[in-house]
């Protein structure tokens, strides 16, 4: 088997994403495509509609701070134990981005609706919350099987791209995600997954009964780039921990725009060096 044409460089991957694209990104423990995110920032992408699945942190804060984001659809944006997300919070205060506040299972369910090709999902809960009041794109419908039972209907979320980092891809463009199944749903729900991996491997994972269960078939994958330590400074499960020093520094410095720029430059350094 020859190398799939979907296997490309990090910059080629970033070039797939046009301004205004709707992009789904996973939560921090699930594989953050940080190297690809920095490539997007470097190429100056604008007006992204970012959907966090279901929450996000540094990745969204960097994109927002760099002016790449128009809409943030999320159940939570936080640096976790390092504190609030300073650029997200500031952008909201100043009204620079639109926020679509959601709840975790609503984002999952709306992606699953897209995965199934149905126009909407239903979900328990939410009724009586101010989330519902502020989401005119959501609806309340009747359960046709039980008189008087109201339930929230959520329109399917169909991102242009699912963007995430995974342990490995094979030369056919299949991506092994292991038990991080939310990446499978994100890939299915999106028009195309664009993925960075710690390593490219020969062969075809689908032929291996131990690898196949944790593999996203290439039909869902629009691009794959190798990016070693591609999630850093965020942790990659089973590989490397979060960069504690960077995160502490960022949480403090990014409270100001100047401090944010300094931290972003710090992250860009190695990439710039590699590109030269």
């Amino acid at each position, binding site marked *: 088997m020859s190398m799939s044409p979907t296997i490309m460089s990090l910059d080629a991957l970033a070039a797939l994403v046009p301004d205004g694209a709707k992009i789904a990104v996973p939560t921090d423990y699930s594989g953050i495509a940080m190297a690809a995110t920095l490539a997007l920032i470097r190429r100056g992408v604008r007006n992204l509609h970012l959907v966090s699945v279901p929450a996000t942190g540094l990745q969204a804060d960097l994109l927002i701070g760099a002016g790449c984001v128009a809409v943030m659809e999320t*159940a939570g944006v936080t640096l976790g134990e390092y504190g*609030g997300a300073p650029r997200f919070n500031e952008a909201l205060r100043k009204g620079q981005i*639109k926020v679509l*506040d959601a709840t975790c*299972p609503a984002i999952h369910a709306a992606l699953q609706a897209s995965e199934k090709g149905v126009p909407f999902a239903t979900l*328990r809960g939410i009724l009586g919350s*101010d989330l519902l009041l502020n989401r005119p794109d959501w609806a309340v419908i009747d359960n046709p099987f039980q008189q008087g*039972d109201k*339930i929230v209907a959520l329109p399917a979320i169909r991102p242009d791209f699912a963007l995430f980092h995974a342990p490995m891809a094979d030369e056919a463009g299949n991506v092994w995600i292991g038990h991080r*199944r939310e990446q499978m749903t994100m890939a299915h729900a999106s028009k195309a997954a664009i993925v960075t991996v710690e390593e490219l491997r020969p062969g075809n994972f689908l032929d291996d009964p131990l690898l196949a269960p944790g593999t996203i078939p290439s039909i869902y994958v629009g691009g794959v780039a190798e990016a070693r330590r591609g999630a850093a400074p965020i942790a990659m499960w089973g590989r490397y921990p979060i960069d504690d020093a960077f995160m502490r520094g960022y949480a403090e410095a990014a409270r100001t725009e100047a401090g944010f720029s300094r931290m972003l430059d710090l992250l860009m350094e190695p990439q710039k060096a590699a590109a030269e």
Partner: protein
Amino acid sequence: MGAEYTKKELLITVVARLLQGCGHIACGASSPIPGAAALLTRARSNGRTRVTVLGSEKNNFFTNGGVELFDIAGEGRLDAFFLGGGQIDGFANINLVGTGGTYPNNDVRWPGSFGSAYLYFVVPKVILFREEHTRRVFVPKVDFVSAPGVSEPGVYRPGGPKHLVTNLALFDFDPKRIRFTLVSVHPGHTVEEVLDNTGFDFDRPAMVPVTPAPDAQTLAELRGSIRPEIAETYPRFAETAFAA
């Protein structure tokens, strides 16, 4: 008299008492005290209690992605969960979104509602947990309802708030009366202190008991087996939360 213990050890013990008998307990992000309490409950359950700690690799059996916690809760396979809030009011409404100014352009923005607007409805025993006990947190009415404490008749709601644990006290919540009741005040604190620092009305018995302190056996368990278990997910917490 009794052993020396930290405030966090006390809170773990208080929460663990509330969890007794639960078959499956889950703890969300940034919840080290609930996490430790759940692990303590499991250690004492003779194999009957399961614990899911989000963010843990060891104490997380899910193989269907991030949706599985919510699916399993929706199916009634999750007995207890924890929620907090930047604001909590006397109707048990919680606000995880922000305060000041006008939503969405709040002066203070918090991370967001996470799973609260769903789990608060479907998990039978939701324990509200917030260490800071001030009028800044415990307000007459929250500025944004991430998840309501009670629902209108007819709304599907097998779950909801049952207890509230803070640095000062333990409360129960009665969804019929839509009111909290003070159950006990933690050692070293007073009912007056609780009244002074709570922005909403609540019920209380004529004599408010003192929250029982952790006994020696519990402290030994916490410092022995629980501490390394919780350290997997919360290493810094494990370093500082336990005495001895």
